[in-house]
């Protein structure tokens, strides 16, 4: 088969455009539209709560980016532009469901009630993320691309054998779809009918590489070859994402196996604060995506349909200011970890070798004279 057989010619990137398969319930202009397969019925309270989550999650991101710029964080991976995809997915999760994130899912973390400061502590370099993955049903962030998809499948097989009515949501990026681990996880999820939904945020880039460098067909179409359905949803449409993800998770819970969701979106910021996207993409592209902002369309819809008034938006604004202040204060006041904690939790029971090394480190540290200008280069004889 040549690329031409699937309507793609080499060098042609048109396949990567959204296309008619895109599931949408709320247009970029904030107009509610219906879709034959995906209905959603949300109360005004729920819609306002969704808006609140979107706005607050963006504020967490803006604040963390600023903190990084001011040297308070080592690095930050911004979710700017992906709030709709993440809050939609987060809302689709039931309490008992398990989520396996990448390193960018701050919006899902928020929906799982993980304190933003527990996320930020990782990027500040205080710990590896200080939430409890099993209590929050939200795994720690994973930074080796794609690995979490296999964990999600194994977790899914585990709960399947427990006969539980929960499901697993595995997050991945467009770039991750090229990893062996990810492709193996698709095979396994399919063969074992594991209750896993793969939620791929196609934000168009993997660091500098555009999606065309990962795939010659739309990502959602790959699922078919693995034996399960793939859908492409407007990732900037929180309602459509919620509807599509909810349906897929329900199918997983009821024994119908995995689904692949391609949430079609755009990374509005840099890959991380260490990256400069002007090296590899045009500003005009970003301008076009600005018009599809995931939060503005919900705001427009709420106003147009009379489900929120100016007072509501003001209250969210005030709440988001408070949140930003709390994050700023909490971040700068985060205590440094105790050096001796380094040797904890390598094993359930410390090995003799490690105990000895811990003692050596303690002796080494004790050998320094405590002085105002820090440890001297050479240990004192005292």
């Amino acid at each position, binding site marked *: 088969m040549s690329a031409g057989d699937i309507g793609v010619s080499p060098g042609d990137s048109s396949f990567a455009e959204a296309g008619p398969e895109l599931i949408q319930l709320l247009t970029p202009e904030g107009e509610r539209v219906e879709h034959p397969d995906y209905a959603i019925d949300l109360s005004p309270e729920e819609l306002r709560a969704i808006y609140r989550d979107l706005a607050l999650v963006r504020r967490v991101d803006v604040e963390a980016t600023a903190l990084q710029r001011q040297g308070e964080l080592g690095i930050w991976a911004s979710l700017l532009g992906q709030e709709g995809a993440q809050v939609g997915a987060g809302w689709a999760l039931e309490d008992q469901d398990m989520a396996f994130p990448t390193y960018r899912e701050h919006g899902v973390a928020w929906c799982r009630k993980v304190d933003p400061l527990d996320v930020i502590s990782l990027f500040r370099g205080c710990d590896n993320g200080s939430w409890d993955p099993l209590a929050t049903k939200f795994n720690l962030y994973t930074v080796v691309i794609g690995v979490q998809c296999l964990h999600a499948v194994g977790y899914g097989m585990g709960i399947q054998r427990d006969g539980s009515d929960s499901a697993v949501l595995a997050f991945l990026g467009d770039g991750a779809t090229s990893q062996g681990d990810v492709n193996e996880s698709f095979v396994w999820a399919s063969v074992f009918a594991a209750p896993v939904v793969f939620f791929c945020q196609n934000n168009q880039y993997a*660091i500098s590489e555009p999606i065309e460098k990962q795939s010659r067909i739309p990502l959602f179409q790959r699922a078919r070859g693995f034996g399960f359905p793939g859908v492409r949803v407007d990732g900037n449409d929180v309602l459509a994402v919620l509807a599509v993800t909810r349906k897929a998770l329900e199918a997983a819970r009821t024994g119908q196996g995995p689904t692949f969701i391609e949430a079609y979106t755009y990374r509005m910021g840099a890959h991380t604060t260490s990256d400069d996207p002007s090296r590899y993409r045009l500003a005009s592209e970003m301008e076009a995506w600005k018009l599809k902002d995931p939060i503005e369309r919900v705001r427009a819809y709420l106003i147009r349909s009379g489900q929120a008034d100016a007072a509501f938006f003001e209250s969210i604004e005030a709440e988001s200011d408070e949140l930003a202040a709390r994050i700023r204060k909490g971040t700068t006041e985060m205590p440094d970890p105790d050096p001796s904690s380094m040797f904890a939790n390598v094993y359930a029971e410390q090995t003799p*070798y490690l105990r000895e*090394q811990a003692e050596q480190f303690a002796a080494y540290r004790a050998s320094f004279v405590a002085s105002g200008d820090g440890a001297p280069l050479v240990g004192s004889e005292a």
Partner: protein
Amino acid sequence: MAELTYRNAVLAALAQEMERDERVVLLGEDITSGGVFKTTVGLVDRFGAHRVWDTPISEQAIVGAAMGAAMAGLRPVAEVMFSDFYAVCWDQVVNEIAKTRYMTGGQVTLPLVLRGANGFGSLGFGSQHGQSVENWAMCVPGLKIASPATPVEMVGLLAAAIRDEDPVLVFEHKALYGVKQPAPEGEQFIPLGQARVAREGTDVTLVGLSITVGMCERAAAVLADTGISAEVIDLRTLVPLDAQAVLGSVGKTGRLVVVEENPGQLGWGAAIAALAAEEAFDDLRAPVIRVSGGNVPWPVARELEAVVDVSPERIAWAVQTLMKHAAAPPRQH
């Protein structure tokens, strides 16, 4: 004289070898945009997309395809962005690439290089992006290992790796990328398997690799003020290992401190210590000491990094402890 950074040394070696031999091709993630560590900037413009391949994010494929391309007659230089990700493609490296010459009875040669950012250096990269993993490869017959300590070393060793007929893993220490040195003139080449005496001394031999060489030099400078003369050996390559350089120095000083950044548990320093125990026993006036990284997954916290990492201070401390060691009285029979 123009300055050369370690980062640009990688670039210079790649350009030098691509210029010299059109069979040299590069493959890896993000390399046409210059690379996430900016070690491939401008190479696609200079040599064309047919020689600089941006790949999907698939380390197994990058490394496995490098092997295939080498079989087809190219000399691939594959980037594994962070050496921690060797774990993602280790089957290709260990079971395929390392064994091909042997299993084909010498009929197939794989002149390829795997290179990328390695090491800790207290940069906040954490457990899965901050490891020094030269020792992983040292357990595998069939692989050569170079881990340059300075910009000048980088150009010459990477060039030698690219010209070598066997697979070579070249480790670039990410904490050294910004280090500068006067740029050398002309073509660079440093043969694999020849250690370098970075500083001469008479009381103790400090053996380092990559970032620990500079740490040893700094420790030696401080020790000199306290009347201790330390010799610093830069191993440059672990395979081939220049055992004579180590043994020769120990023969002179009678004391050995091996400094490695990876966790001590089966770090490469163990091999150097064993070498001295086996072949320099009579020369040694004190036990061999290894200074290595903590035997824990690397922490991400700055406070903890400082504890887990090796440092000139820790090296100097180890040497001072060693110098206090009184030679044991002869054993009674």
